[in-house]
């Protein structure tokens, strides 16, 4: 039994006490608590625990950069109660053995619900479908499939994947990048890349795949999820597709909301990510599209990398940046502070919509009696300074190093059990 005293659900109305029993919210208001733990939540906002549709936990294969255990700790500290682990591990999660391993390790660690994402194609090669059904029916109960890191570029394979997914009621999540338009690409194709002499990654390489896949999804009557939308043009394509009834959802990363390609001038690969940081006007369009609901949710694309894979020349560096522990703060900075989203909106883009998209029945639920106690307590007034070495991830590749960001996660609760409190993961 735990009592959260004085929290403000969704940042709306008067402070209330939230009583948690047996993993559920049992009463809200001024409940009596006898003997249980009392958490002083005065001044804190209560939100449903966050759900990340896009995380790289690197296990199996690159346990030097992140493990399911360290990544779970980072997730809990970031306010997450469920994360989806991408399939581009080594070996690739394209079979029931790997996805069940990831799922079991997640359960053993117990800090966050770890849902493996299965590969769409064998070995992420884009050539033939992986055994989606076997993974869906495994103990891991895989709900989302993606070749993320790589695009399912062959239109026929993508069509088949979308078509086949309908029969399993699972979701295909596309990393939209036409590979022929991004051969050797290093940076957003625009003025900065032209000046720095970096091969361009044109916006159209993303937008053309998103348009194609929306048309294919509409044609075969399947659902489609678009990973890490990075351009204003993609937001326009999504707006158009949604208006004509396509079952498409989309995510945006915190870094594409906050950062732009001005950061590339130092050639420091901590800013290298795929899709690349775009222009400030793209970032603005993405923030507006998220507020409007054209982009459904925020997903971190949390991508730990070893120092030697970042402490090198730009073109040799691996793309990706940490995101789990900084996501909320970046959303507060880019969306809440400018008035684009209220806290109800934060709950929508970081918890409710991603849970709905993934079909998670017990996450992203209302804060109400009888609901699962998957909750996060946020101090909206506090700030913190990012220090990569002190984040829970094994890797330290955060682009926000030294930045003071608003919004501090004070506690995270998974089915009534504290998983993070005052900056410490609770095992």
């Amino acid at each position, binding site marked *: 039994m735990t009592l959260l005293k004085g929290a403000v659900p969704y940042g709306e109305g008067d402070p209330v006490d939230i009583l948690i029993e047996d993993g559920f919210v049992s009463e809200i208001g001024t409940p009596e608590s006898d003997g249980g733990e009392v958490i002083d939540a005065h001044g804190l906002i209560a939100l449903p625990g966050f759900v990340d549709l896009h995380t790289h936990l690197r296990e199996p294969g690159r346990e030097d950069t992140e493990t399911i255990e360290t990544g779970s700790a980072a997730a809990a500290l970031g306010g997450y109660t469920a994360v989806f682990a991408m399939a581009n591990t080594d070996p690739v999660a394209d079979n029931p053995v790997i996805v069940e391993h990831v799922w079991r390790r997640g359960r053993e660690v117990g800090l966050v619900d770890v849902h493996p994402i299965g590969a769409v194609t064998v070995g992420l090669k884009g050539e033939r479908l992986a055994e989606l059904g076997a993974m869906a029916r495994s103990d891991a109960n895989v709900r989302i499939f993606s070749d993320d890191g790589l695009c399912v570029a062959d239109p026929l394979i993508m069509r088949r994947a979308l078509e086949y997914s309908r029969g399993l009621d699972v979701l295909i999540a596309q990393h939209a990048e036409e590979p022929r338009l991004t051969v050797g690409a*290093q940076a957003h*194709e*625009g*003025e*900065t*890349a*032209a*000046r*720095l*002499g*970096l*091969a*361009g990654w*044109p916006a159209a390489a993303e937008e053309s795949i998103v348009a194609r896949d929306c048309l294919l999804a509409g044609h075969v009557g399947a659902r489609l999820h678009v990973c890490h939308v990075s351009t204003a043009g993609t937001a326009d394509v999504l707006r158009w597709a949604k208006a004509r009834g396509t079952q498409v959802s989309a995510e945006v990363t915190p870094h594409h909301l906050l950062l732009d390609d001005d950061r590339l001038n*130092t*050639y*420091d690969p901590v800013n290298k990510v795929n899709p690349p940081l775009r222009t400030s006007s793209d970032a603005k369009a993405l923030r507006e599209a998220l507020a409007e609901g054209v982009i459904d949710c925020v997903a971190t694309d949390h991508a730990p990398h070893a120092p*030697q894979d970042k*402490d*090198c*020349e*730009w*073109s*040799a560096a691996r793309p990706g940046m940490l995101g789990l522990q900084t996501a909320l703060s970046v959303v507060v900075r880019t969306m809440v502070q400018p008035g684009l989203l209220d806290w109800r909106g934060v709950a929508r883009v970081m918890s409710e919509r991603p849970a709905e998209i993934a079909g998670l029945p017990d996450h992203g639920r209302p804060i109400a009696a009888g609901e699962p106690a998957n909750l996060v307590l946020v101090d909206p007034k506090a700030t913190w300074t990012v220090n990569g070495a002190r984040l829970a991830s094994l890797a330290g590749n955060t682009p926000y190093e030294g930045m003071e960001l608003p919004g501090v996660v004070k506690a995270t609760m998974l089915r009534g059990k504290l998983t993070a409190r005052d900056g410490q993961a609770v095992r």
Partner: protein
Amino acid sequence: MKHLLSCDGLSRDAATAVLDTADSLKQTLLGREVRKLPTLRGRTVITMFYENSTRTRVSFEIAGKWMSADVVNVSSSGSSVGKGESLRDTALTLAAAGADCVIVRHPASGAVHRLAGWLSHTHTSVVNAGDGTHEHPTQALLDAATLRERLGGLDGRRIAIVGDVLHSRVARSNVHLLTTLGAEVVLVAPPTLLPTGVSGWPVTVSHELDAELSAVDAVMMLRVQAERMHGGFFPSAREYSIAYGLSEARMRLLPDHAVVLHPGPMLRGMEIASVVADSPRAAITDQVRNGVHVRMAVLYHLLAGEEEVA
């Protein structure tokens, strides 16, 4: 000035100081039987080339030797680079071994900026001898020296840069340096060989060489790399040559005083007709000659002249 990494951000005063030093070094050495100055005696200069190069490496080596520096050449194939050592470790090793200056050519744009960062706690200077498709500042300086010599100055002069601007570090460095020194630059290329973001550059852009030639004081032809010819950037070498090659007929469109430059190596008959390359208005061997003096001047300003240059 600790490093020379790019012409982007190089001030007019700093660039002019290097060019003036190069001029005086040239005058000093003129007609001397023994072309050796004691200026950098006891200094160690290491060239580190991760790409094949003859002219640039040799030019730097001669420049260092004429200044009496100890010059050591490292190539990526004959060193631990071939064993998979990181650029950072190689740089730290060479700095620890006593390099006062490392001169680096690398296929990755920005590699020299990373190097300068890794060596920021050391006294070692870094000179960019060409980084990917980014910059090649000493090439631009030697081009500017040659143009100053031939034209008397660069203020108000109009220079056409012709060819593969997209992949050219020579073009990027020249755009910055020539405009800093007061010249107007016009880039002439098919749209496929211009960067998408070229609109942000302080230049005008043209796709028609014939229309530009009568109004320029100099034309700088860029090298077209063989792999571009097969990469679909233009239909064929013949079509490129017809549209953008500097033929004898095109040379006649130039004003009498106009100069022809080429950074080399040249593809005769493709980018430039032999008659043009060998004509008196071609300054191609002057460029190579001036390259040594300009690189001597750069080494002087980095290693000996810290106090003199802001």
